[in-house]
């Protein structure tokens, strides 16, 4: 069975040009996400997990620069390379086909707008036409019931906005709040519906709240609601439960699993917690110092880890009754990374070739990818 890859990241290279030198943050990242799966991405702090997620949406802040590689995204039976598209096209993709949930929900929400305001912003950006049609239809139905014919001023207005959304008149009209009361109501209703999907109790009340009135878990639900508002094909979740308590984390993980089944989105779940990965993902990718070192199905990875770094990572999970193991040394400085395989200074199996040649990312056994010379990475 050949499964569709919804996102293919090939040999992505990204550098940050800082005053201290060039930080080689991503060094040939390879990542494939299949349609409708949850891919866990694990790694230590500073290994490039978050940078990878931002790069996927081409949201790299200066002084960062994408130097090479391809980000292939499949939508509507076409494959597009995000790196070759212009900003206008990318804006229609972000938040619509690919959306993101960040680590700190409170920092991500705007403190001066209500929850419903912020969710409807997403809807109005990407699904305005849909809502205009819905409103028109609703008014028509209502008038039919009353036995009225013809069209009202309000309907004409919506029709004009629908036909020519960028014309001067519809832009002016859309600035007048009273002119589109029905339309706003319709959007509001959808907002509450989305909040309800997030298992938020009393969604009507929460919709009117400001972010500071929400607890951490609730704020994260609102952010997830914003991300899923347009039913994206791919959701990137960047450590969404890191700052939450275990009980709330369990609630959010449960919610993500339920939503994934409902919306059928693919999810790239970034975390540093191996427990969470084991809990939620279908496949796991392990990152170290700017490249993906191993990618496999979750059961396979936990049972038969190949790359020495993955093995070390799994061994450093605290287990009662056993002495704690740890990987010697620390994460390398990416301004001056080790030559060849970036893990070789900490690797117990390092050979001569590891110091010189960077191992290729190859398929070792069925769909179990790794980048290590021990497993034929030198071919």
């Amino acid at each position: 069975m050949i499964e569709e890859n919804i996102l293919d990241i090939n040999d992505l290279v990204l550098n940050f040009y800082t005053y201290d030198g060039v930080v080689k943050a991503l060094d040939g990242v390879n990542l494939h996400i299949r349609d409708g799966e949850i891919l866990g991405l694990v790694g230590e702090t500073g290994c490039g997990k978050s940078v990878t997620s931002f790069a996927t949406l081409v949201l790299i802040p200066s002084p960062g620069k994408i130097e090479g590689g391809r980000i292939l995204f499949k939508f509507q039976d076409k494959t597009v390379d995000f790196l070759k598209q212009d900003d206008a096209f990318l804006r229609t993709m972000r938040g619509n086909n690919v959306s993101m949930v960040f680590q700190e929900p409170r920092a991500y929400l705007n403190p001066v707008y209500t929850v419903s305001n912020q969710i409807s912003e997403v809807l109005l950006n990407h699904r305005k036409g849909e809502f205009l049609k819905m409103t028109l239809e609703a008014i028509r139905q209502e008038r039919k019931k009353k036995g009225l014919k013809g069209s009202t001023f309000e309907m004409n207005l919506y029709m004009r906005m629908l036909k020519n959304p960028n014309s001067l008149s519809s832009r002016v009209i859309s600035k007048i709040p009273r002119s589109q009361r029905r339309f706003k109501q319709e959007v509001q209703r959808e907002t509450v519906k989305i909040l309800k999907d997030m298992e938020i109790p009393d969604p009507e009340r929460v919709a009117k709240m400001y972010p500071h009135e929400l607890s951490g878990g609730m704020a994260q639900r609102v952010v997830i609601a914003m991300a899923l508002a347009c039913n994206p094909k791919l959701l990137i979740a960047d450590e969404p439960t890191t700052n939450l308590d275990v009980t709330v984390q369990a609630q959010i993980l449960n919610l993500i699993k339920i939503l994934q089944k409902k919306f059928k989105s693919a999810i790239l779940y970034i975390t540093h917690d191996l427990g969470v990965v084991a809990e939620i993902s279908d496949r796991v990718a392990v990152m170290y110092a700017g490249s993906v070192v191993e990618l496999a199905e979750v059961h396979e990875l936990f049972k038969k880890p190949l790359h020495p770094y993955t093995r070390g990572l799994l061994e450093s999970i605290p287990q009662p009754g056993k002495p704690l193991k740890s990987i010697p040394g620390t994460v390398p400085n990416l301004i001056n990374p080790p030559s060849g395989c970036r893990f070789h200074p900490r690797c117990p199996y390092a050979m001569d070739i590891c110091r010189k040649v960077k191992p290729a990312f190859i398929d070792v056994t069925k769909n179990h990818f790794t980048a290590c010379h021990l497993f034929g990475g030198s071919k």
Partner: protein
Amino acid sequence: MNSLLNIRGLKKYYPILGGVLKRKVADVKAVDGVSFNIEKGECLGLVGESGCGKTTLGKTIIRLFVPNEGSIYYDTPTNVLEEVERLEKKDPRSLKRIRKEYDLATFRGRKLKQLRRKVQIVYQDPTTSLDPRILVKDIVAEPIVAQGLAGGVETKEMVINMLEKVGLTSKQLYRYPHEFSGGQRQRIAVARALVIRPEFVVLDEPTSSVDVSVRAQLLNLLKDLAREFGLTYMFVSHDLSVVEVISNRVAVMYLGKIVEIAVTEELFKKPLHPYAQALFASIPIPDPTKRKERPPLTGEVPSPVNPPSGCRFHPRCPLAIDVCRKEEPQLIDVGHEHLVACHVVASNFIK
């Protein structure tokens, strides 16, 4: 066993000030009537969700905060403690003399300063607990200087000695905290706490700001140091897997109260309090074969300003019965030093 600390009915409230005159309008009941023992040489883990009063309890025990009520008997002989128990019921007034001598809650001035030599704390985030403008040698030497324990050359020797014990070298003496990685910074904080050889150390989430691989190194270090110096730890954390590895006994806190205390293995194998059960069930297990479909705990932690009546867990508890709404459960021993505060568990136990 000999207990190092005996805590009785400890309460710490934070006032909420309001109105034009900034009068007290309410209290945040961070720690609300907590009693337990810490034995000599053990490591007591303290777990709970954020905002349940873990850190406040840790800081109050070592008198960084003044408790509103209750007493903390430090290194008190057993016969004196028995005396205290007898007097508490009969004649609380005559307790004053004993409290003045043993109860940390009453200590002031010079006596408090002397206490600081015996108890120390390691904070959560070393980037904020270490002064960025002081050299490492001065950071670690500060407790020695403050206590007036040693002179110049001797101080330096003690500092180097301590740094080597935590895995740093004398080359790093003349550096500033920002030149170190997170794990190394936490090592410096540990060195600072242990340089004056305290007896009791409160570890306030020391591993929450470091990575998995560094966390293991740090935990090993803390364990080794405890053995070497004969330390007693109170390990405050919300990370249950870490607590399981390092502590001998674990106390579970919920909204300012301790709901369960037991020996680590016993508690992790068989938690009795419904909150503890929910808490342990929500730990993600790093093993995909043990994935389970379980209903997570619903609702959120209520506000400690106005905690629910009776048992504080009753609005979220799946087992709640009528009495839970009215009466506050007391900690009862169900065998093997396993203490639980729950009406349902208690009634089952009596049967």
